[in-house]
């Protein structure tokens, strides 16, 4: 090869390499890539959030065009089990027992769940779950029309587990409405305007463990005080100023109880006003008044079902009935105050098929000598029927409903001496309560194609509110 050819090849090679290097240098391999960085959705500054961050009560909407309920509606069913948490209401407008069905005044759709309403001054409060917004939503409705007056909500993404919503709001005499969400978020609002007053995240503040199937505890307001049972790491129970959210007292969780689905029940035991709570791991009594306020007076650990939905029910000055589902059955707690201080003992306990029991609803003590319950599905031959027991014998019924009157997990309430019981499929039965039994007065399908009608009923001003898994209805049950 001639030197000239060699030079030419060398030069050509150098030129090719130079071109390659220049092209390599100029080529931008990521020119067609788009970078995805925070802020591309134009979210306003300062509103960034983490996925698990819950800002309780952050959103509000009022429907200015909806008419306010008439001021004449002054009755109330201000929380779980109505006045005094007994499930009984008296001195009401006479119930219409004429021929013909009770009239359905209105129906509203709800998110899937079992949260039942409270009623206060013509307003209905329900802590719904809005699946489209992944939010707990406190909805305030007009009792007369069912139209929504306002709603306050907050995003709390959850997975469906027998629906979402659970608990009943509680309204204080001065007009503060308090809710507990399925994930233990406590929210207090002005019951008239919906203005947010204060909030607590029980998991964060107290280290509460929300039970499987979500929190079922309905708030208790006593006067101007909210009583909560977070059953957290250190705190068993707290008393909170319902207007300001300031903690007034707290009871230590020495016994290490965990949160159940049960609610705090006020009782007078051994002459002392006591807040009784059946947690997972035991039952406790906390002093409600006086110098001892907030002190854990007694704890009974002899009865420990793993799941407790019903709440403790007082029988008399010293005895408390405890029931739970899933085969746990029932137990009798005896509380005494004597020379050695407070004692609380489980004097008897039995399985579901052996006596008075309940899976979900809290029994009702009527007239001092009748305990009304619906037996759970493992309650033997009487399963799912309404049964009446005398408090002195929790093992033998004094009355039971007919074999086709089985109610599942449905709720029941006593209005002016009549028991209103709802089958979980949406059929309402009305019984006249008599000494030692009941007479069926009427029955009516009120929730056609109803499913999982488990949420408790509420009654005020002649209107009975009932729900199934996806709707709430209002029945006019009074005369006129």
């Amino acid at each position, binding site marked *: 090869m001639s030197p000239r050819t060699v030079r030419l090849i060398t030069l050509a090679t150098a030129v090719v390499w130079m071109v390659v290097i220049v092209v390599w240098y100029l080529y931008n391999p990521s020119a067609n890539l*788009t*970078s*995805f*960085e*925070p*802020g*591309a*959705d*134009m*979210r*306003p500054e300062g*509103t*960034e*959030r*983490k*996925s*698990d961050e819950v800002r309780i009560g*952050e*959103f509000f909407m009022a429907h200015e065009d909806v008419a306010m309920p008439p001021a004449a509606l002054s009755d109330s069913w201000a929380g779980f089990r109505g006045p005094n948490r007994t499930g009984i209401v008296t001195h009401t407008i006479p119930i219409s027992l004429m021929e013909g069905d009770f009239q359905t005044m209105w129906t509203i759709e709800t998110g899937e769940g079992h949260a039942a309403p409270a009623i206060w001054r013509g307003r209905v409060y329900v802590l719904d779950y809005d*699946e*489209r*917004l*992944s939010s707990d939503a406190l909805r305030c409705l007009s009792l007369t029309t069912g139209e929504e007056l306002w709603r306050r909500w907050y*995003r709390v*993404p959850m*997975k469906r587990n027998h629906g979402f919503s659970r608990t009943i709001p509680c309204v204080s005499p001065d007009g503060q409405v308090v809710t507990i969400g399925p994930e233990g978020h406590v929210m207090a609002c002005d019951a008239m305007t919906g203005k947010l007053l204060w909030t607590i995240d029980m998991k964060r503040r107290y280290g509460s463990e929300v039970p499987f199937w979500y929190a079922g505890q309905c708030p208790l307001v006593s006067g101007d005080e909210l009583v909560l049972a977070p059953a957290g790491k250190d705190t068993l129970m707290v008393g909170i100023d319902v207007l300001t959210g300031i903690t007034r007292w707290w009871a230590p969780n020495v016994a290490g109880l965990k949160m159940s689905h049960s609610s705090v029940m006020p009782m007078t035991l051994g002459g002392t006003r006591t807040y009784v709570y059946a947690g997972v791991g035991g039952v406790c009594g906390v002093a409600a008044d006086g110098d001892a306020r907030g002190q854990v007076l007694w704890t009974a650990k002899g009865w420990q079902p793993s799941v407790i939905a019903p709440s403790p029910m007082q029988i008399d000055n010293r005895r408390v009935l405890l029931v739970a589902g899933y085969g746990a059955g029932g137990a009798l707690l005896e509380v005494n105050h004597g020379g050695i201080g407070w004692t609380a003992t489980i004097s008897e306990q039995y399985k579901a098929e052996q006596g008075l029991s309940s899976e979900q609803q809290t029994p009702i003590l009527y007239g001092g000598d009748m305990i009304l319950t619906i037996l759970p599905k493992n309650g033997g031959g009487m399963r799912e029927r309404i049964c009446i027991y005398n408090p002195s014998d929790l093992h033998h019924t004094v009355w039971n409903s007919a074999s086709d009157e089985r109610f599942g997990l449905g709720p029941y309430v006593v209005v002016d001496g009549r028991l209103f019981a709802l089958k979980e499929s949406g059929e309402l039965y009305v019984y006249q309560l008599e000494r030692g039994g009941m007479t069926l007065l009427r029955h009516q399908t009120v929730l056609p194609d109803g499913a999982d009608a488990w949420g408790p009923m509420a009654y005020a001003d002649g209107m009975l509110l009932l729900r199934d898994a996806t709707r709430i209805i209002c029945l006019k049950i009074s005369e006129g």
Partner: protein
Amino acid sequence: MERREFLRTCGTLITGGGLASLGGVLGSKASAVEGETMWQIDPERCLQCGRCETECVMRVSAVKCFHANQVCGYCDLCGGYYREGVKELNTAAENLMCPTGAITRRFVEEPYFEYTIDEDLCNGCGKCVKGCSSFGNGSLFLQIQQERCLQCNECSIAKVCVSGAIQRVPVGTAYKLKDHA
């Protein structure tokens, strides 16, 4: 009008948001191709198995994600937009479900966001659809984009579809949309 041109018009109307007029357009044009059928996915049967992405004879699948605005909750934490278990709710790539960046969103007002699918980028993998149906209200769903589909005699996705979701439908109802009753 050529059938392909007609379908292109339909596709443009859908992606351009002209859903309201779609029924009428399809209805009035259907007579031109009466009796013919096309392949389409029934969103109620689709299990988002992932085969729509890989089995189509097209290099990029003719199956695309559609979005029903009327069904959408406009959620901030969208199960179709964000990966499961994501911590930060922002638009950084590592948080996003779509592997091709086909889904964008725009803030409307607290707490609502509007979601849009870029059909050119979507490969029909169905990841967003799965997320939206298990942790949302199912506004995202897969459809064969008819203007891209070759209308093979035998749809190669239909042959392997695990749920029998792909079937021939009349041209007049070439899409099974969720916004429309």
